[in-house]
């Protein structure tokens, strides 16, 4: 049995490596079909003949496509995504600066949606076929259909205009916080600055909710169905016949087993959150990776777009790999 797991994990690992390589190839091809001279496209409007010559030399743009790819790939392996001539930095550095903000937002939103989704979903299952269940199920379909665009704007108005709370960005400019982890909520606490922490906390809520509500909608539905399925199992019926208190049955027998598929499916959606992030970060001026992509699109900075797409793909593929591996350990039925 153990060998089977190892084989499966090994196979998935190979597959993931192939996918990453495929993503690199696709991004490479895209960057070479840019209209006009690729060097000029990389440099943007600030292109000078000297710079074009330099970029052509740096990336081997006058050589064959195979040689160009080797240059591209060998730089990539060293973690070098090239220089952005438009933003004036190395792309890897730009991304590294922005990544913690996105990570913080996405993890926060993910936790939020797990709490909301699983609680309401379990509630709907316990009260199944009542008015409450119907209300929760309808709400979940609505939440799921809510476009991030609309939700973001509504929460921006609700929090920023109606409630008069601080919205936009990660922290008010009047606070100066020394960076330890890059995660604002933790950094403000490490600085011992409670007011800054409160400010940062209030600013993360609206964008996190925007990401969390659609995912919660999905989780409510999944949790409800999963819990209902487990509640019909024989061992739950036995527990009920033994007259165990309902709370004990719910927590010890039902939830524990019902959560397995939920956690893994939610894990897959963690990666989807990273994508929805572009719109949310744009609306809330959140200085993360998504906002960087938007800025790059606005400035036509193809190097940055390309680097971000590649990085997000690698994160996405890695998370999928981890989730699949976990799944095999948790649920032996998958090991085919």
């Amino acid at each position, binding site marked *: 049995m153990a060998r089977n797991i190892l084989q499966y994990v090994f196979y998935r690992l190979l597959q993931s490596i192939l996918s990453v390589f*495929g*993503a690199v*190839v696709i991004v490479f091809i895209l960057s070479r079909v840019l209209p006009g001279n690729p060097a000029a496209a990389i440099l943007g409007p600030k292109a000078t003949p000297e710079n074009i010559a330099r970029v052509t030399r740096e990336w081997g743009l006058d050589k064959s496509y195979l040689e160009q790819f080797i240059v591209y790939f060998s730089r990539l392996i060293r973690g070098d995504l090239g220089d952005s001539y438009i933003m004036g930095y190395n792309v890897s550095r730009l991304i590294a600066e922005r990544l913690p903000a996105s990570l913080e937002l996405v993890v926060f939103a993910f936790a939020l949606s797990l709490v909301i989704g699983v609680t309401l979903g379990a509630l709907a299952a316990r009260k199944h076929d009542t008015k409450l269940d119907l209300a929760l199920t309808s709400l979940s379909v609505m939440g799921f*259909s809510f476009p991030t665009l609309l939700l973001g704007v509504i929460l921006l108005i609700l929090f920023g205009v109606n409630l008069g709370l601080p919205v936009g960005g990660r922290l008010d400019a009047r606070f100066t916080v020394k960076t330890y982890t890059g995660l604002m909520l933790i950094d403000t606490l490490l600085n011992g600055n409670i007011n800054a922490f409160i400010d940062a906390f209030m600013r993360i809520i609206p964008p996190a909710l925007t990401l969390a509500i659609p995912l919660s909608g999905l989780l409510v539905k999944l949790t409800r169905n999963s819990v209902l399925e487990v509640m019909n199992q024989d061992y739950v019926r036995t527990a009920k016949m033994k007259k165990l208190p309902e709370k004990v049955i719910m927590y010890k027998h039902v939830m524990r087993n019902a959560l397995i598929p939920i956690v893994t499916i939610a894990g897959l959606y963690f990666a989807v959150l990273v994508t929805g992030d572009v719109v949310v970060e744009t609306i809330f001026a959140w200085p993360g990776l998504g906002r960087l992509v938007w800025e790059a699109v606005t400035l036509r900075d193809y190097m940055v777009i390309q680097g971000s797409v590649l990085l997000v793909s690698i994160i996405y593929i890695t998370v999928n790999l981890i989730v699949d591996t976990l799944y095999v350990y948790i649920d032996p039925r998958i090991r085919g």
Partner: protein
Amino acid sequence: MIDSTSRTLREVLMVKRVRYGVIILLSFLALSLIVVFFSPFQYDQISYNVHYPPLSPSSVNWPYIMGTDNLGRDVFTRTFYAYILDTGCGLAIVSLSGLIGLIIGLISGYLGGLVDLVLMRIMDIVISIPGFMLAIAIAAVLGSSIVNAVISVVIVTVPIYARLVRGMVLSVKESLFVLAAKEAGLSTVRIIVKHVLPQVTPIFITQLTMELSNAIIYIAALSFIGLGAQEPVPEWGLMISTARRYVREAWWPAVLPGLVMFLTVLSFNLIGDGLRDYLDPRKKLSVRETS
């Protein structure tokens, strides 16, 4: 034939969700047609005398039912022009990528072997890159326009259908009636068209309906970040993107088009969800990518 079609239609409409979805769909379609033919305003008609602040949606400001935007353009007219544009783009996306995916899936599943291996590895790679990110990369290369946005979403969504169809073909391929057709000496194309395709159709159409709302969200999101429709084209994502800049002064040019977009997406989700339950009562979970 016609009898059985109309009976199926009646049965499908019995599903509550489908009925609600169709009601929203038809009323929005009617509103759009009314706007196109009878609206007193053009979608790009700027009126400088109500330039700023924008008129709010109230009976005082009749006939500006949904108020005006920062350029004095009628929000109602623009929103329902956008309904035609966005659902049109959505339809174009799902039909194009559905068709390409259908062909790839049929070939891959039916022929098998090396063709299948190569085609499916390519699909695996495309699907392993987050869809919206890949669409951004492609649209950025092609240049900002609504047509290019449609093309990029088509490329990104082809694997969904290719994989779905391939899987179904594989399960149909070994069934008795296909084997019998093969024994009878029918050509491969004929077997695919006459015997395999009809088996695949219902689930395929359901998937198309579900993906329609995703396609609309993709187009709006691409336009929102500046990679789709350009001013003065009435498009939901672009309208929200422009209006969010002065959202503190006027909420309606951002929120109202967004609400119509939400209801549109909801209507297609309801129809698709209901269709799926109607076709396959066992499979009630829905797992889709949203952005």
